[in-house]
């Protein structure tokens, strides 16, 4: 079980949280101008990084707030916790093999 540090409540068991998938996916700025390919990207395509991944979690049975974390999808180590709206912190000296972006 993951031990996740909620920015508001501190370290809690994973069972108190829900997963929100990839972080930093913005709603399309001009939805009317998107073609089918772009809609598909927005609706169905998400990064599936092997390595450090920026993702959202919500503390459902605690403060009920959303936040972002950087987590390694192989070791499951959590490398950073940061608020919604903040930029992805730069923790890695070099991008790991297979990581997106």
């Amino acid at each position, binding site marked *: 079980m993951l031990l996740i540090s909620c920015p508001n409540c501190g370290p809690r068991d994973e069972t108190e949280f829900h*997963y929100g998938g990839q972080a930093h996916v913005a709603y399309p700025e001009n939805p009317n101008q998107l073609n089918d390919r772009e809609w598909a990207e927005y*609706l169905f*395509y998400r990064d599936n990084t*092997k390595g450090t*991944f920026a993702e959202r979690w919500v503390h459902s049975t605690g403060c009920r707030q959303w936040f972002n974390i950087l*987590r390694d*999808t*192989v070791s*499951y180590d959590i490398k950073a916790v940061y608020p919604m709206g903040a930029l992805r912190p730069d923790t890695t000296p070099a991008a790991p093999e297979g990581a997106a972006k």
Partner: protein
Amino acid sequence: MADLLPEHPEFLWHNPDPKPSYDAVIVGGGGHGLATAYFLAKNHGMTNIAVLEKGWLAGGNMARNTTIIRSNYLWDESAAIYEHALKLWEILPEELEYDFLFSQRGVMNLAHTLGDVRESMRRVGANKLNGVDAEWLDPQQVKELCPILNISDNIRYPVMGATYQPRAGIAKHDHVAWAFARKCDELGVDIIQNCEVTGFVKDGNRVVGVKTNRGTINTEKVGLCAAGHSSVLAEMAGFRLPIQSHPLQALVSELHEPVHPTVVMSNHVHVYVSQAHKGELVMGAGVDSYNGYGQRGSFHVIEQQMAAAVELFPIFARAHVLRTWGGIVDTTLDASPIVGTTPVENMFVNCGWGTGGFKGTPAAGLTFAHTIATGAPHKLNAPFSLERFETGALIDEHGAAAVAH
């Protein structure tokens, strides 16, 4: 001492070094990669081909799945491909000359709410229209087929009935892989283990080779069968897949006398159980919520499925967990696979089978081989194209197919 040992039995396959070039290279030596190579050789006469596996043969999800085989999916496209797979399962032991313990002991999908009951009855009707054997059982009939199931109303979600597919069942996964591997080898396919694909060689938008830890191999065509690692390979090739890789766990108990005659699945309380030929109770449930490539998940997922199992099968309270493990499953948003062409010329992809691709192995192999050999999909996999995420022609099997697997 050595001279006391009998001669080593025939190897099921050989371990050749990679040749400099092939007509086609299959990436991933799980069930799907092996089945694809088999049908390429058998149906399309393509024998100058190789299966490249980064680890040992069928050590990925093929080694880790709970082997449920059924075809009682709701939608026409799914019923067609999974039923075709089931028909192939019925003839493969003879065709591959290998008894891999395919056991048609039936699969029950339990209903615990009025909503479940309605959906289940609808699925039985849809299945019948598609020529898939399906029945609705009331709780008493459920009990007759599986006497150890608790159908009383003293549990949180009493059993209100079940769908039943008599021709469904289980098979011995390792033996399935070895059966395909032996036939592939006999047909001249190179099975190359410890050979990890690390990149692709392209001429413009056309793939012409694969880079591996054992050198670069030229090839006319590439078929990706990498299950949980499909996105990683697609990224190397320069395109994206609508796939998320999740841990999926399972567990077994110690060996028991035969107590469980069929396969029982419950979407609602989320567990499914069968008893392996050797006697272990084999259980699984849903994926861990987070993305993961670690071949392990969180223990609460195991705990919850055991709690559900003990409520449904009170005698399991005396069993013990012997072992738990995880695989990496490649899920799509409509819970249906992707089998077809890619944006890269001469590169094809078979992935997205997620939590339930073991049962599909023979049909995945057959249709993917057709796609690779002819450059166009077979009619069974045509609906399962990558383009469906753009056209919107999704095949939404979430819930509709009862629980995954």
